[in-house]
């Protein structure tokens, strides 16, 4: 159902113009996020996951620039009390076309689309109390008084499971533990009731037991607020446990997108298959050696011609994969994959 979509990224290209050369960090990404869904964006470091997220929020700064593509955000216009999304009027705006510093973008960023980052110690201001930082967002987007904003900040801190929120609201980030800081970040992101939450490696810096707490919290809050989540991570375990859909990125392209079951049980792209074979799974110890992916991720200045994965691919077809980059192919089961093996004209099915 297309009217179910919240965000559609079409052919997004974000490039960085550096002295050393051109880095095509995001090279034609197509991605769809449905309302209320959790979409995992996975890939290795440098594959363009974070740049995709920054592009959505129009936060790419010089020397980088979004050079092509559309980011269609189907925002729900404010409805009368009740606020049923189905009946509400939907307006579509192309975020990529907006002025990054303009009014319209500022109204979306932080309010309708919020983001949480990997390292809360770096992304929170250490000069201000967490309460001040949460209130800042509320005061910017809503017409409320200082007092009301403070009340709301305490309320949201309570929601994310910070004990003694009324006291903690006046604390500085360094007075909180890693897990608590990440909760404060989430509180800040949720303070304006976003419809889309972008979480960029939200648990990577945390220990497993704290990670479990934070993931549980995010899923719980998602149900309560009914928002969509774009979860960026390199941890396939986290994706399997939390996401409904998965998009796998390699060198600036989404090579495969499908439901979490499709991706984990019958991956279609050789990169997805190789990635899943290369991770140790808990409970299958000594089941045999891991199968690593040969070689390394290519240097961003020298992208391979043709399919970006072909130099490391075990099913590489000579004179095809090294010549032409495969298009996005829609499979019958609803997923999309960028690989010549699935091109009906090739007649080679996996």
């Amino acid at each position, binding site marked *: 159902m297309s009217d179910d979509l919240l965000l559609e990224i079409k052919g997004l290209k974000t490039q960085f113009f550096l002295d050393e050369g051109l880095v095509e960090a995001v090279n034609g990404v197509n991605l769809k996020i449905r309302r209320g869904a959790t979409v995992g964006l996975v890939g*290795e*470091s440098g594959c363009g996951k974070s740049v995709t997220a920054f592009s959505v929020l129009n936060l790419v700064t010089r020397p980088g620039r979004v050079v092509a593509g559309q980011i269609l955000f189907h925002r729900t216009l404010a409805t009368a009390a009740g606020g049923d999304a189905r009946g509400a009027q939907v307006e579509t705006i192309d975020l990529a076309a907006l002025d990054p510093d303009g009014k319209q973008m500022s109204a979306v960023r932080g309010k309708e689309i919020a983001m949480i980052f990997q390292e809360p110690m770096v992304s929170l201001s250490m000069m201000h109390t967490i309460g001040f930082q949460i209130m800042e967002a509320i005061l910017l987007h809503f017409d409320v008084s200082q007092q009301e904003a403070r009340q709301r900040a305490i309320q949201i801190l309570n929601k994310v499971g910070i004990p003694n929120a009324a006291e903690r609201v006046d604390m500085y980030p360094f007075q909180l*533990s890693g*897990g608590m800081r990440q909760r404060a970040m989430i509180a800040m992101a949720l303070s304006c009731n976003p419809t889309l939450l972008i979480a960029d490696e939200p648990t990577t810096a945390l*220990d*497993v*037991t*704290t*990670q*479990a*707490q934070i*993931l*549980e919290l995010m899923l719980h809050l998602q149900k309560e607020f009914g928002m969509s989540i774009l979860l960026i991570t*390199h*941890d*396939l*375990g*986290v*994706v*399997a*446990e*939390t996401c409904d859909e998965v998009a796998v990125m390699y060198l600036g392209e989404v090579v495969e997108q499908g439901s*979490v*079951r499709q991706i*984990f*049980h019958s991956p279609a792209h050789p990169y997805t298959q*190789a*990635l*899943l074979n*290369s*991770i*140790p*799974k*808990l*409970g*299958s*110890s*000594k089941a045999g*050696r*891991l*199968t*690593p*992916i*040969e070689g*390394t*991720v290519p240097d961003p200045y020298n992208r391979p011609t043709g399919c970006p994965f072909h130099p490391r691919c075990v099913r590489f077809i000579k004179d095809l994969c090294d010549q032409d980059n495969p298009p996005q192919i829609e499979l019958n089961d609803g997923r999309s994959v960028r690989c010549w093996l699935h091109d009906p004209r090739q007649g080679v099915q996996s």
Partner: protein
Amino acid sequence: MIQTPISPVLEVSGLKKYFPIYGKGILQRQIGDVKAVDDVSFTLAAGETLGLVGESGCGKTTIGRCLARVYQPSQGELLYHQPDGQVRDLAKLNRGQLKPIRRQVRMIFQDPFSSLNPRMTVLDIVGDPLKVHNVCSGKELEDRVANLLERVGLRGEYMRRYPHAFSGGQRQRIGIARALALDPRLIICDEAVSALDVSVRAQILNLLLDLRQDFNLTYLFISHDLSVVEYIADRVAVMYVGRLVEVAKTRELYTNPQHPYTEALLSAVPNPDPDRRSQRIILEGEVADPSHPPSGCYFHPRCRYAQERCKVELPLLKTLADGRQAACHFAGELNLNGIRV
């Protein structure tokens, strides 16, 4: 059942490492200790891999550094069995006496970017231990470095290059070549694959397994990643706030944990299988502060099985019927869930 190791390489007993905390006044009196490692004992048998797991700040790295004598332990014995049968206590040796042993006990570090000197070529980095110990020089040194590089999967001619010319995985291979340079017996891998991308991590893990076979190495594999440890380790030791809470063979520890902390840790690991979304045990609260640990069992404020006794009496690591060890008053009595195989 764990057999008594036929030939131990290292016997650690009662190892303690306290870091002093000083007051603010002019006198800067010592006002307390961070008990980073508190009364830890274990044995490393020749040829085995012992995984050491726990959350950040639990003292894993401190143990590794005490073993390599980067730190001077506050208390305890580190009995090292030399190949000729002599036993030396590493904790009591001075710099000069340690030098021959430093050839045999080596480290591999987490961050392949900061653990290699950017101003040294690969030849200097890998060859340095050989020069320091006067093993060889000149052409012979170059040949040996080329050999080592090829052994870890790099081309010999790369030795004139600087670290910045290599990717993360390749740098970690350089770090491994450096550790191998002096024919070591024991290698302490401190989060050796944690900074690597998944596709490269598998390459390095397989390399470590091959090298263990070929050079008859013993590993102490320190990691926070339980899936990686399950893949590489024969036995696993779990740490919590400076103390060992459980030691057992890998499979037994994972499928049938005997300490509530191990159970919680295992259930918190995200499983890359959407059909097996685990019933996670969400631990309340946070890891205890090692300078002010709670009374009794350090884990009791977060433990769902805690009883009155746990609040007052500190459980010691005790050996259970089947030879495994756990530090819980109710070890063997609780019905804890491990992972399903």
